[in-house]
């Protein structure tokens, strides 16, 4: 039961991109197409699982003072492995498109955030489900965002044109400003939906209480 809860929370209620607003750099940087979003999401998912497992295993023996450096080393190792693996076995076009952003998974807040906020306090099993949920939620958000941008730009999805007559690409949505605009619209849509839900229930909408800056323990050095 609780494992299921750890899994599903990342998909919607605590979606890392659309609710927690973590990992904005890859979110804005690579989501110019659905394929790129998928590649980035899966790469991050792998790193998340790896780092969550190791951090959870180490949680009782790692000294508090150096836990952040240790996490970074763990995450960086997994990222480098992914980078090499993709260079060797992924399609060259995907690796070229994501190239710059793969090493940046090291500093993706989703990964460090889950390590610090969840895996360092929970059992290995729970951490795996947390990583799966968060990773899939991240992937889902990236694919949706990338798909939306790709479709609005030229009427195609996963590089297949769905509307054959659409000949002029609208490059605004695939450019950097477009990333911000579309993400903003997504967030507005999320808020509108949550508010609507609350209104139907007859209560005032409240943002999830533990998801704002005051409750984030990333920066607190644990004294």
């Amino acid at each position, binding site marked *: 039961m609780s494992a299921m809860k750890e899994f599903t929370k990342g998909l919607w209620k605590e979606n890392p991109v659309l609710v927690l607003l973590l990992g904005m750099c890859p979110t804005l940087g690579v989501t110019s197409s659905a394929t790129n979003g998928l590649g980035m999401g899966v790469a991050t998912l792998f790193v998340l699982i790896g780092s969550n497992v190791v951090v959870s295993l180490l949680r009782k023996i790692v000294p508090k003072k150096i836990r952040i450096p240790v996490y970074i080393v763990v995450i960086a190792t997994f990222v480098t492995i992914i980078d090499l693996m993709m260079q060797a076995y992924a399609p060259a076009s995907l690796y070229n498109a994501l190239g710059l952003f793969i090493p940046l998974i090291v500093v993706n807040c989703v990964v460090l955030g889950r390590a610090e906020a969840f895996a360092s306090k929970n059992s290995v099993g729970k951490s795996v489900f947390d990583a799966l949920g968060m990773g899939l939620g991240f992937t889902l958000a990236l694919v949706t965002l990338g798909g939306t941008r790709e479709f609005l730009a030229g009427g195609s999805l996963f590089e297949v044109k769905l509307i054959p007559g659409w000949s*002029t690409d*609208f*490059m*605004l*949505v695939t*450019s950097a*400003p*477009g990333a911000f*605009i579309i993400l903003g619209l997504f967030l*507005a849509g999320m*808020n509108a939906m949550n*508010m609507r839900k609350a209104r139907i229930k007859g209560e*005032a*909408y*409240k*943002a999830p*209480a533990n998801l704002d800056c005051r409750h984030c323990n990333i920066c607190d050095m644990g004294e």
Partner: protein
Amino acid sequence: MSEETKPEIMMPDMTKVLVSPGPHIHTKETVPKIMFTVVLAMLPACLAGVWFFGLSALMVLVLCTVSCVVFEEGWNKLIKRAPTWKDGSAVLTGILLGMNLNAGVPWWVCILGGFLAIILGKQLYGGLGYNPFNPALVARVGLLIGLPEIMTTWNATRAMGADVVTTATPLGMAPGAVEVKEMLIGNIGGCLGETSAVALLIGGAILIAFKLIKWQLPLTYIGTVFVITGIAHAVNPAQYHSPVVHILTGGLLLGAFFMATDMVTSPMTQKGAWIFGLGCGIMTSLIRLWGSYPEGVSFSILFMNALTPIIDRMTIKKPFGYMALTKGAE
């Protein structure tokens, strides 16, 4: 923010909106009246555009205006707000957008532009008065980034002869390729509302005569561009256009009189207007001389729009008799 209570997102309370300190004077000016006068001032430039580019220019203007009004009313319907089209702001945005387009753009570009201007540039921020950026410019820049090919192909004017279909703006040509007389009357390539310098100056004079804009702003804007491009031209005349060309071509006059001066998005104070004009002028010159786009007016105005709240706060008038505490005074 207080613990556990995040208020529902609301429109700003009108009683709490900051205004510059008094005295305030009540006038008979209303939003529709202002908008009507501005439209009147834009008329010469629009007519010049239609004259030089033919009926397709008229079509672009009408289509932009209609789509802006339709999007405005559609949005009002969607979020159940009272109709606002009668205040004329959507019409004004539509005409300005049309003036910022090439006369030969396809019909759907006008509609997309109307969407970008009204929905993205204005209504998502809360409607007239809440938009930080000039809606027509948001649409123009959005289209320029989104459809660079369409937005940088200029129709030739009718006077250029029937066999020339497209042309470059003089800014994109080699220095000295176009005569000043042609630029004054508007027989050059460019957006349909920006080519005729004389018509734009007449419009600007109307706006200043009716005190709808602060004359300081266009003056500093154009002056700054004149000085900076003048220096560049003096250093290397073969590479850089003369400052006269810089002022008479591209969107500078249109931008300086009609878009930088937008009441909602430009500073309220006089001192602010000086700073705003100076900033726009510097940005425009830098983009034109060394940027990768030939034209920088829209980017520079949007950039300064973003700084407007800060400029307003910096230059707010002090009440009479108010003295800032100096370091020595305790």
